[in-house]
């Protein structure tokens, strides 16, 4: 150090000490002028003492730091207090290093400051460390600002401490403005209660929270955020701050909502909700997904000529009203055009649109504040247009690819909805038709799985049985309703059906609660269910009325047959009288002879015995005639027995022989040998034979130019049947009369009723046979009937259910226990 004053030895010693100090030491006068600098200063700065004296030292201070340093130096000088300052000092090689300037005043005995002493120490390393720390803080801050999440710090009281740049940009406010806002000012009102509850809970417990809320963006749009709040604690464990992270999950949330909405729509479709409700929900879902849009679904009427209302929950009612009913033509409007062309129609700006000028559609839409319309056809799986799906905007808009994806998705959903509704409607209609048809025809239907024995009945079948449809039918319940007499043969059918898988038909009766009886006819078809199990489907018709009317008809027919029979017999009066008179004549003659033989002396006992024997024989003969006649005249219900047709015919011939003789008919019987018996009513069959005989005889009444030959023939017929033929040589058949022959009251005879052949045919048909007429090759006609041969089993009678065999008790139990 160099001093202005002459040094003493002690001073030199002191200077050497000062120069050796590990710091830059200096002194200054009370006015701030530097008057001493040590050797180290000169070594460090590369400045000489002279260069540094006074104000010279300032050249070594970093120009950026100088003004502040000087300001501070002045205030130190003014204060007279020991202080510190910091500034960068230039080293001899030009490098600046931070130094701490420490100053201390030096006062004389009067307290007057006479000198300032200063030591500058190198704090570059500390400063670097400090700067490093500050740099990390800045970096952290810039990272937080740059994070694509909302970061805020709040005090436990809820006051805002910090918000990152993203927060400020999102809400469009400065931190100061934000601090003035209420704590929850940007949260969607609907989400606020939940958020406050969660926040309150977390503040009380100190547990982190996690919630999704909508927050308002600067442009007023709410977006979904996933908000997570965590506490920061000091070393004592007290919460000093809550840091909150908000992640934008709007896209995910919308996708989720869309997916949930679609799922809900599909559930509505599957659940059979009304179509209008589903389409409305669909429109609302689109509107919540695409901001600022309005949707409509219009349906095409079945003729394809008009648009009908589908759904448009947010569009003005009179706007939609003016669209529906419009003809489906290209110039009617975008939706009509879409339906017409089966192609998407995009109108991005209705103010510049000209395609629907003819119908003035655009001005109508503009009047309702709509400026864009994207209409897409809704097509069935077969490609048929079902309707249109339209999205409207209040501003001109061009669809983006993501819009197109949405549109495709929703038109598909709408198509499913509409098709489902249409098939449902068709199904319901067809079900209603079926139910009505079942009701009208008194026909119920059922299915029966032979493996599980599960039975389902149509409502009409429950109705027929008079059973409660809410109580499922079981085989037991079905069996308990069967008429006892039908249990055996029905259970036989059921047991056979389990095995053979063949279609069958069965007649049976069911007993009603009021003990009345219903006659049922079931036609049952075998099939397989999806598991391949044998299953039967059947139709059961209530034929009670038909049965009863059949019975009434049968009685009427029987009455009529009786009348016809008596009428026929009337024609035989002479013949019958003859048949009776003949034996009576023999009886009287024999009796007279007998008396005379006994009256002589001696009486002719042998002769009398012989005549008495003849009397008895003739009496029997008369009695036989009467018996036969009584049978023919009697009026009793049809019975079923095995009938020998040859014998029956012989009896008829016996009764009518005299009549045939009288009318000079030559009868030639040709009875087949070993003719099997037939099943039927003997008297009715004899009536038919008699009728055919008398008709044949009548037909030959006017014939004189040829023998009045009548051939009556019995023979086996094909198909296990027996045929009887009556061939005459009479007037033959009138060609136009053949068809009418068997009609009731058709007659060619002046004295006939015209019911004989009609009744004969109905009798033969009730015997499952056939009666027909044919002209002969020569003169005359041939009438024939053919009926099935009988078997002893037929004795029960097919058409008479009352005669059905009584079931064995074990059968009745079997059908109940193991149906």
């Amino acid at each position: 150090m160099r001093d202005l004053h002459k040094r003493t030895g002690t001073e030199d010693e002191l200077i050497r000490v000062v120069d050796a100090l590990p710091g830059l030491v200096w002194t200054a006068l009370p006015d701030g002028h530097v008057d001493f600098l040590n050797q180290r200063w000169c070594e460090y700065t590369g400045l000489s003492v002279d260069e540094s004296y006074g104000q010279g030292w300032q050249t070594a201070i970093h120009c950026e730091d100088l003004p502040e340093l000087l300001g501070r130096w002045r205030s130190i000088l003014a204060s007279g207090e020991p202080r510190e300052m910091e500034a960068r000092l230039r080293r001899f090689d030009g490098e600046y290093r931070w130094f701490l300037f420490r100053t201390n005043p030096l006062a004389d005995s009067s307290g007057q400051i006479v000198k300032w002493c200063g030591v500058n120490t190198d704090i570059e390393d500390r400063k670097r460390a400090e700067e490093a720390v500050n740099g990390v803080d800045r970096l952290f801050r810039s990272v937080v600002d740059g994070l694509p999440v909302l970061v805020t710090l709040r005090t436990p009281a809820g006051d805002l401490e910090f918000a990152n740049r993203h927060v400020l940009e999102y809400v469009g406010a400065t931190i100061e403005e934000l601090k003035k806002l209420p704590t929850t000012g940007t949260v969607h009102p609907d989400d606020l209660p939940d958020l406050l509850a969660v926040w309150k809970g977390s503040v009380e417990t100190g547990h982190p929270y996690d919630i999704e809320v909508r927050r308002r963006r600067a442009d007023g749009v709410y977006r979904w955020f996933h908000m997570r709040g965590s506490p920061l604690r000091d070393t004592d464990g007290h919460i000093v701050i809550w840091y909150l992270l908000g992640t934008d999950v709007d896209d995910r949330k919308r996708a989720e909502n869309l997916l949930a909405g679609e799922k809900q729509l599909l559930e509505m479709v599957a659940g059979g909700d009304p179509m209008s409700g589903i389409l409305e929900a669909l429109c609302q879902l689109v509107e919540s997904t695409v901001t600022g849009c309005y949707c409509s679904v219009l349906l095409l009427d079945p003729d394809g000529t008009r648009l009908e209302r589908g759904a448009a929950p947010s569009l003005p009612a009179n706007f939609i009203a003016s669209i529906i009913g419009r003809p489906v033509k290209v110039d009617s409007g975008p939706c009509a055009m879409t339906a017409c062309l089966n192609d998407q129609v995009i109108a991005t700006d209705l103010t510049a649109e000209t395609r629907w000028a003819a119908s003035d559609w655009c001005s109508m839409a503009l009047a309702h504040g709509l400026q864009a319309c994207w209409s897409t056809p809704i097509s069935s799986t077969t490609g048929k247009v079902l309707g249109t799906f339209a999205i409207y905007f209040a501003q001109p808009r061009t669809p983006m690819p993501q819009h197109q994806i949405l549109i495709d998705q929703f038109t598909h959903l709408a198509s499913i909805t509409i098709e489902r509704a249409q098939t449902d409607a068709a199904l319901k209609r067809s079900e209603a038709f079926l139910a009505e048809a079942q009701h009208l025809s008194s026909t119920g239907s059922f299915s029966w799985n032979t493996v599980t024995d599960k039975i389902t009945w149509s409502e009409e079948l429950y109705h027929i049985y008079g059973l409660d449809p809410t109580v499922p039918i079981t085989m037991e319940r079905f069996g308990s309703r069967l008429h006892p007499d039908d249990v055996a043969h029905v259970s036989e059918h059921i047991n056979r059906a389990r095995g053979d898988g063949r279609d069958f038909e069965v007649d049976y009766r069911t007993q009603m609660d009021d003990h009345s009886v219903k006659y049922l006819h079931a036609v049952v078809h075998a099939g397989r269910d999806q598991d391949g199990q044998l299953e039967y489907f059947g139709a059961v018709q209530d034929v009670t009325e038909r049965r009863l009317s059949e019975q009434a008809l049968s009685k009427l027919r029987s009455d009529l047959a009786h009348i016809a029979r008596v009428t026929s017999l009337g024609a035989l009066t002479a013949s019958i009288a003859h048949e009776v008179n003949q034996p009576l004549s023999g009886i009287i003659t024999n009796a007279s002879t007998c008396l005379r033989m006994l009256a002589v002396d001696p009486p002719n006992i042998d002769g009398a015995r012989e005549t008495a024997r003849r009397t008895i024989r003739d009496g029997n003969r008369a009695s036989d005639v009467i018996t036969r006649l009584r049978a023919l005249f009697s009026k009793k219900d049809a019975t079923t027995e095995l009938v020998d047709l040859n014998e029956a015919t012989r009896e008829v011939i016996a009764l009518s022989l005299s009549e045939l003789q009288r009318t000079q008919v030559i009868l030639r019987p040709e009875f087949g040998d070993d003719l099997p018996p037939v099943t039927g009513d003997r008297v009715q069959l004899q009536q038919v034979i008699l009728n055919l005989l008398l008709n044949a005889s009548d037909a030959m009444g006017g014939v004189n130019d040829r023998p009045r030959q009548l051939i009556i023939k019995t023979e086996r017929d094909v198909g296990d049947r027996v045929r009887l033929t009556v061939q005459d040589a009479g007037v033959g058949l009138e060609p136009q009369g053949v068809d009418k022959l068997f009609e009731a009251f058709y007659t060619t005879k002046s004295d006939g009723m015209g019911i004989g052949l009609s009744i004969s045919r109905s009798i033969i048909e009730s015997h499952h046979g056939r009666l027909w007429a044919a002209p002969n090759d020569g003169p005359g006609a041939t009438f024939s009937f053919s009926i099935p041969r009988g078997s002893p089993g037929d004795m029960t009678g097919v058409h008479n259910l009352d005669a059905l065999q009584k079931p064995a008790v074990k059968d009745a139990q079997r059908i109940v226990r193991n149906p």
Partner: protein
Amino acid sequence: MVMRSLISVVDDDESVRESLPDLLREFGFAAQAFSSAEEFLASDCVGQTKCLILDIAMPGMTGPDLRRELTVRQQEIPIVFITAYGDATVRPRLLEQGAVECLFKPFSETALLQALNDALRVS
């Protein structure tokens, strides 16, 4: 011995052919039965028959046919017609044509005797 008058019976009914000749014999006549008109005409009894008991309705030649045939052959035999048909209209016509009587079966022995007496008186 006085020759008994021959009464011939023509009837297709066997019981009549069995019973009637016996009664006639009890009456004291000779009696012969034929089952058809043709059989009677073919027999040698035609000339000897004092009275013919003749059934009206028979297969082949009927009773009236036989009467006409006898007329044609100029062999007039008193005829008592018998019939099992109760047709009352036939009797006056037959009587008109010269029949002695027409009896409806069954007839009493009194009616028969009366008719025979009438017939034999005629002859």
